[in-house]
């Protein structure tokens, strides 16, 4: 607390420091009068004469009002400290009146609200937190009239058990403490669940042959069709073949006419033509490699007329490169080919060669086969054995 003199001096000192010429034109009495005006204004001074309550009140007294005096809890009750010392009157009448300051409540701001549709049966609803909220009321409706409280906290709520192709409305409000903070307004959002999705088929490939393989897959009970896609690439970046099969129970297919010794990737999804369900995700089978094909046996294998030490051998070509890498001819001194004296390897697509006997006479046995390339083709069977005599 201070007195008039100090207050007036402080004001004049402040005014001088701002603009000395101003203070020189201001008289102390002027400032003192202004202080009195403001003092009476701030304390809402009331005179007893005007209130007609002057009985028992000595002359020269006024009523002043001090707002927002704090109240603290104390020993099971509460207390305040007087902001100033009143005049001394009987029965403590110096404290003229005490009234509570009405509490002011402020409304909480509405929480943020967002939805993420996870599936036909699940929507994740996220409620933002609000300062001073003691709880939340997250509610769901399908008609905007009937609401069901589904959560009382902020954060993400996984709303499971929903029905496909249905619009759900959500609203949320922050709950205040009812005194200093009242409930927020509702914030709304909506989300529509998609069609239920057919189950992803499990795909199995089997029985590879040189030109195909079998494929089988599990089929959702609600599916009435399937889409098969075949690729040479595991990421299906290029689809080599796409098949659409209709009708239930079509969970099997046999691929034919494919290249031998080739690795294929196949994936399958099931579909619903009634549009009640959305297509399944692709079920992807592992790779499967078709078997290598066996080359044909060269035809018309025969010996010719000996010329010196050489015996000409001829055949017809029944394969073509690159499937055929070369021709293999074995010449032996026995029909069981246990004593092979020469192995000839003419090139692919050739049709003749000569056996050099080196002057060794006697009966010789010979057989021929086509050699595979090792990737898409395997060797042909041996031809029938022919014999000729070297003289």
């Amino acid at each position, binding site marked *: 607390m201070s007195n008039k003199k100090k207050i007036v001096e402080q004001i004049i000192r402040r005014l001088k420091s701002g603009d000395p010429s101003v203070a020189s034109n201001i008289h102390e009495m002027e400032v003192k009068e202004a202080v009195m005006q403001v003092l009476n204004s701030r304390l809402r001074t009331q005179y007893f004469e005007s209130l007609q309550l002057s009985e028992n009140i000595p002359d020269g007294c006024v009523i002043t009002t001090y707002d927002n005096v704090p109240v603290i809890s104390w020993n099971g009750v509460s207390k*305040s400290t007087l902001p100033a*010392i009143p005049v001394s009157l009987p029965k403590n009448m110096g404290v003229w009146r005490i009234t509570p300051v009405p509490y002011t409540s402020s409304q909480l701001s509405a929480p943020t609200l967002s939805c993420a549709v996870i599936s036909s049966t699940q929507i994740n609803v996220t409620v933002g937190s609000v300062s001073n909220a003691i709880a939340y009321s997250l509610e769901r409706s399908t008609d905007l009239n009937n609401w069901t409280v589904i959560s009382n906290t902020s954060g993400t709520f996984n709303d499971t058990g929903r029905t496909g192709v249905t619009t759900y409305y959500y609203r949320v409000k922050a709950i205040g403490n009812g005194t200093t903070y009242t409930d927020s307004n509702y914030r709304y959002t909506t989300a529509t669940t998609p069609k239920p999705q057919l189950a992803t088929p499990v795909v199995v490939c089997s029985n590879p042959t040189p030109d195909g393989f079998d494929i089988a897959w599990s089929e959702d009970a609600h599916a009435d069709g399937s889409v098969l896609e075949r690729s040479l690439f595991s990421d299906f970046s290029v689809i080599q073949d796409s098949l659409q099969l209709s009708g239930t129970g079509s969970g099997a297919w046999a691929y034919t006419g494919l290249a031998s010794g080739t690795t294929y990737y196949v994936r399958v999804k099931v579909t619903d033509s009634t549009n009640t369900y959305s297509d399944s995700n692709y079920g992807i089978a592992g790779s499967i490699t078709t078997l290598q094909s066996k080359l044909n046996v060269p035809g018309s294998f025969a010996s010719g007329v000996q010329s010196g030490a050489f015996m000409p051998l001829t055949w017809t070509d029944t394969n073509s490169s690159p499937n055929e890498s070369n021709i293999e001819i074995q010449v032996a001194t026995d029909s069981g080919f246990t004593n092979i004296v020469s192995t000839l390897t003419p090139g692919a697509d050739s049709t003749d060669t000569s056996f050099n006997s080196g002057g060794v006479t006697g009966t010789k046995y010979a057989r021929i086969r086509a050699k595979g390339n090792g990737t898409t083709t395997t060797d042909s069977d041996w031809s029938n054995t022919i014999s000729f005599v070297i003289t």
Partner: protein
Amino acid sequence: MSNAFEDFIPIPSGQFAMVLTQRLMSDILGQVGYEVRGKEVIYTKDLPAQSPAVNYVSIQLIVMDFSQYSDYELLPITADQEADIIETVIKMFAPEQVQPGIVDSTSDSK
């Protein structure tokens, strides 16, 4: 304007304890009583713990008319009120800054 039914009820000095021990009286018909003890005011209820809570009160005091205070007598004001009064009076006496004129050749104002 204060509501007479909201006014706290003064309790004569020395009767505070008696009021609290008398069950029928202690509630004072649901209102709040107070007793002045020196520079403190004791209330019959724990006001901040009530619902709605009362954390502040408005107190009216009978004091001498300010014009009767000498220059050196302490005024019945709080430190906050003193600062507020000083700032308000300074604003009353401080000269207003004259706003410079706007020089703008593109403006229509003359």
